[in-house]
């Protein structure tokens, strides 16, 4: 008899998480928990200024502190050709500054000592003489031809521009605008935001001269990419580099780039022949590691009176900080910004993007998003709402008119993406019903009588998750496929390893569910391991919601390879030909005689004890999966807020999330991802404010100033589900980890703007702190979040 899939923890089971068993006991093993014999401790001295020439560095007093083993500066690094390193976007980044510092918090020197306290003491004794230079804190300043050149280290760099990039059909778009009845315009800033996983970054480098092997414990979401990069930078043979990413205290894109601290700890270990641990403090994390966003938008929609969108134009200007160090697929300089408006049927579109260097920490990491799609979808939904206002049309109706209809799939977007499935209207309608849209106007009227302003914000979007395919997507030339390796032991228990890297997503639980679904081996009999490059198959890691779309698909495919071999063994055990074998969950049986069968566990035992002639022994395999397309989940997020006009404070009265991420492997985990993602959306919309003054000082360099929402402020969410299986994914799943962070912010902003709509306000830049909302209310004007230096 076939097994009950839910009982064995297969697909669709809200299986409780395996990894929790150690986390709830305090037995997680994060980088800082690892202690190696003879380990030294490293501290980094950072620049207090944003742009300055280094005139001298005096480390003599640091060397004299008892317990200090090594002091490193840019000069020491340069002697080993390690003062600069390549980034994941074909730029270079200073490891320790040699010539200039280019942002506040840049790494200037490092001390390695017996004790972390001693290392800190010694750092404070290093004397650096800076000659300060004019500072550029936003791309508008960077555009000025008279502005100082930040990247004077680069031979052919004559301005502060990082790149120009464009896509779309300009002529067709111009023609669409020429025919428009109404042109709707939006001008806004998606501010810098820091992902701030609760665990900062860190590494322990352990170079063993006797074997030549370098082992590095590292907070990385992509250990194999790091191994490749270390092989390039440190000129060590790849087999002699072992990157271990142990438990990660969150990532959110912050742990994708390769940071100077990692590289310095590696050189320090090579020089001292001792393990060297570097653990960043929170301020170090906030001022030097990958930021997200920081993009200015000018957006225009060409509209027909009946509500149809004829064309779309976007011009984005992005602030990348001093080094273009975020990981983007090679072909796409501004990530997948051109996935914007993918859920709408728009005939013509044109996107122009320019990137600029500034004296800020490297920016542009995909903060819980698939390469800039968070900005893309936020811009889209802010433009959509304002277009509805400009047409005088109901915002839900306006979306309904323009959303891609169910019978239009596969649908080619104006920028060339192929969306393949979805039920957009159904999701929207479900959300509208749940929020009580039909009676909202009346509710709004009544609230006004009480002196309160109500607003509804809608955000509908599909986003491209799960890069590659490898034809189009790579990071520094490495194609974006992923992998899984499955070994079934003779007792029918198994170990699975993948090239992804869990950071809280629960892979140890969900990957086993996919194997259970494919093979009928109970999930509890399957161990999942990730993050060790010596044991895991090569993979591109976990970010951009690519685990389930790519590595998860590889898990299904390797399971099918195992099943194909087990079928041959089953035929041998049952003494029939393979063609006469049927499969049901967990067992093979003889066609027409269900009673005569063998279980997958019987086949596993036989693979090691009773192998048919001509068949290799053993039951293990691997799969490299190159997805034919991205997956396209859809979401409708709808938020109802109440604004207090006397204070500008806004409260979420209700938030409804309708997500279609295809088939759900573990509904409990999917819902956890959605609620977590919505909270990061709420955080960006309401309080995560990290900016820079005109001298480039980071305002928000600790959690006293950079506010993250607690349980007290965070609203509750109502979740709903629609399932449109992905047509090309082996188990019909689509990415989900980032949908809520991507689509969520516009729902909050649209709601607050909707509450203020009658005053003529059309935009309040995030974060919508009460003072900004109050300013909008009292002036009836848009509130720009441009840094103060631009306001005058």
């Amino acid at each position: 008899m076939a097994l009950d899939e839910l009982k064995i923890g297969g697909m669709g089971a809200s299986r409780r998480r395996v990894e929790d068993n150690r986390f709830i006991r305090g037995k997680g093993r994060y980088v800082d928990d690892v202690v190696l014999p003879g380990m030294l401790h490293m501290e980094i001295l950072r620049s207090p200024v944003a742009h300055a020439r280094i005139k001298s560095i005096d480390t003599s007093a640091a060397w004299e502190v008892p317990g200090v083993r090594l002091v490193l500066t840019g000069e020491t690094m340069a002697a080993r050709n390690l003062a600069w390193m390549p980034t994941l976007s074909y730029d270079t980044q200073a490891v320790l500054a040699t010539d200039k510092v280019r942002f506040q918090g840049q790494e200037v020197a490092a001390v390695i000592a017996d004790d972390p306290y001693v290392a800190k003491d010694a750092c404070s004794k290093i004397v650096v003489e800076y000659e300060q230079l004019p500072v550029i804190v936003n791309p508008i300043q960077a555009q000025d031809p008279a502005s100082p050149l930040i990247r004077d280290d680069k031979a052919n760099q004559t301005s502060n521009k990082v790149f120009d990039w464009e896509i779309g059909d300009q002529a067709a778009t111009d023609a669409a605008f020429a025919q428009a009845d109404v042109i709707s315009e939006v001008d806004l800033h998606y501010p810098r935001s820091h992902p701030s996983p609760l665990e900062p970054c860190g590494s322990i480098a352990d170079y063993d001269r006797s074997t030549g092997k370098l082992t590095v414990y590292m907070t990385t979401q992509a250990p194999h990419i790091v191994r490749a990069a270390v092989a390039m930078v440190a000129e060590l043979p790849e087999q002699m580099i072992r990157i271990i990413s142990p438990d990660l205290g969150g990532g959110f894109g912050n742990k994708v780039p390769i940071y100077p601290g990692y590289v310095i700890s590696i050189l320090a270990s090579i020089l001292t022949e001792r393990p060297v641990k570097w653990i960043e403090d929170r301020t170090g994390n906030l001022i030097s590691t990958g930021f997200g966003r920081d993009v200015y938008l000018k957006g225009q929609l060409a509209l027909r009176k009946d509500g149809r969108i004829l064309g779309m134009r976007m011009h984005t200007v992005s602030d990348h900080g001093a080094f273009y160090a975020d990981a983007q697929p090679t072909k796409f300089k501004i990530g997948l910004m051109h996935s914007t408006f993918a859920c709408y049927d728009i005939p013509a579109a044109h996107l122009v993007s320019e990137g600029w260097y500034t004296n800020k920490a490297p920016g542009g990491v995909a903060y819980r998003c698939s390469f800039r799609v968070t900005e893309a979808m936020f811009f889209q939904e802010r433009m959509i709402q304002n277009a509805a206002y400009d047409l005088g049309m109901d915002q839900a109706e306006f979306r309904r008119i323009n959303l891609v209809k169910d019978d239009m799939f596969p649908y080619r977007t104006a920028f060339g993406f192929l969306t393949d499935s979805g039920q957009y209207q159904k999701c929207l309608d479900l959300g509208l019903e749940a929020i009580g849209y039909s009676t909202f106007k009346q509710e709004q009227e009544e609230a006004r009588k009480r002196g309160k302003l109500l607003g509804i914000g809608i955000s509908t979007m599909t986003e491209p998750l799960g890069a590659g395919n490898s034809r189009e997507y790579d990071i520094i030339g490495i194609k974006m496929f992923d992998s899984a390796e499955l070994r079934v032991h003779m007792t029918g228990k198994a170990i699975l390893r993948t090239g992804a890297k869990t950071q809280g997503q629960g892979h140890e639980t969900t990957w086993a569910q996919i194997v259970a679904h494919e093979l009928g081996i109970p999930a509890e009999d399957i161990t999942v391991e990730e993050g060790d490059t010596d044991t895991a198959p090569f993979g591109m890691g976990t970010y951009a919601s690519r685990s389930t779309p790519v590595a998860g698909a590889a898990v299904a495919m390797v399971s099918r390879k195992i099943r194909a071999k087990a079928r041959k063994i089953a035929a041998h055990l049952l003494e029939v030909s393979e063609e006469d074998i049927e499969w049901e969950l967990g067992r093979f049986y003889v066609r027409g005689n269900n009673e005569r069968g063998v279980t997958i566990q019987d086949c596993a035992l036989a693979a090691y004890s009773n192998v048919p002639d001509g068949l290799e022994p053993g039951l293990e395999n691997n799969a490299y999966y190159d997805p034919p397309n991205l997956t396209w989940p859809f979401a409708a997020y709808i938020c109802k807020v109440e604004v207090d006009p006397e204070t500008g404070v806004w409260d979420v009265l209700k938030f409804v999330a309708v997500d279609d991420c295809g088939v759900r492997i573990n509904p409990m985990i999917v819902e956890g991802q959605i609620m977590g993602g919505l909270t990061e959306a709420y955080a960006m919309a309401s309080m995560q404010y990290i900016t820079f003054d005109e001298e480039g000082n980071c305002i928000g360099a600790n959690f006293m100033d950079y506010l993250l929402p607690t349980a007290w402020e965070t609203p509750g969410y109502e979740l709903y589900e629609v399932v449109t299986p992905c047509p090309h994914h082996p188990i019909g799943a689509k990415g989900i980890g980032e949908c809520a962070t991507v689509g969520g912010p516009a729902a909050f902003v649209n709601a607050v703007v909707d509450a203020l709509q009658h005053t003529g306000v059309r935009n309040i830049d995030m974060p919508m702190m009460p003072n900004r909302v109050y300013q909008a209310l009292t002036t009836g004007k848009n509130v720009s979040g441009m840094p103060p230096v631009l306001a005058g």
Partner: protein
Amino acid sequence: MTSLYETVSPPPGDDVPTNRINLTVNGQLRTMDVEPRLLLVHLLRQGLTLTGTHTGCDTSNCGACTVLFDGRPAKSCTMLAVQADGHSVQTVEGMATSSELDPIQEGFKEEHGLQCGYCTPGMMLAAKALLERNPNPTEDDVRWALSGNLCRCTGYQNIVKAVLWAADKMRAQQN
């Protein structure tokens, strides 16, 4: 000698002051000589290898380092080890017995109250202090009691459910 020094390191110089402290950690009395500037969280993590207590912000905002200090939640990243002299400290490692989990630990697993697990020990200890003084909290009581602890993964909704789950179970056990 401070508990931070590795055995391979030379002992601290004569000019490094140390203080003798006695404290009870998870029910066990410990006596140690520590530098007066040593933070409690480092004493626990490096000195006693109780690595379930984490550091996330260094400024007592995130609560990953929360321990129970004489039964009340305290941020061990902004306390000196010498302040613990004569006091009792409970960490996550002291929550479960070898055979049984604390209902709060069970609740966090049952209600999916954690993802990356980094905030979890501090969250659970803050919840434990709440349930000891208020066995029947409302959702708002829980949210307020946990407002000194940040979580970046869950959005808190399931953490709140986990604590209410534990409260239910503990009340059922009492009856």
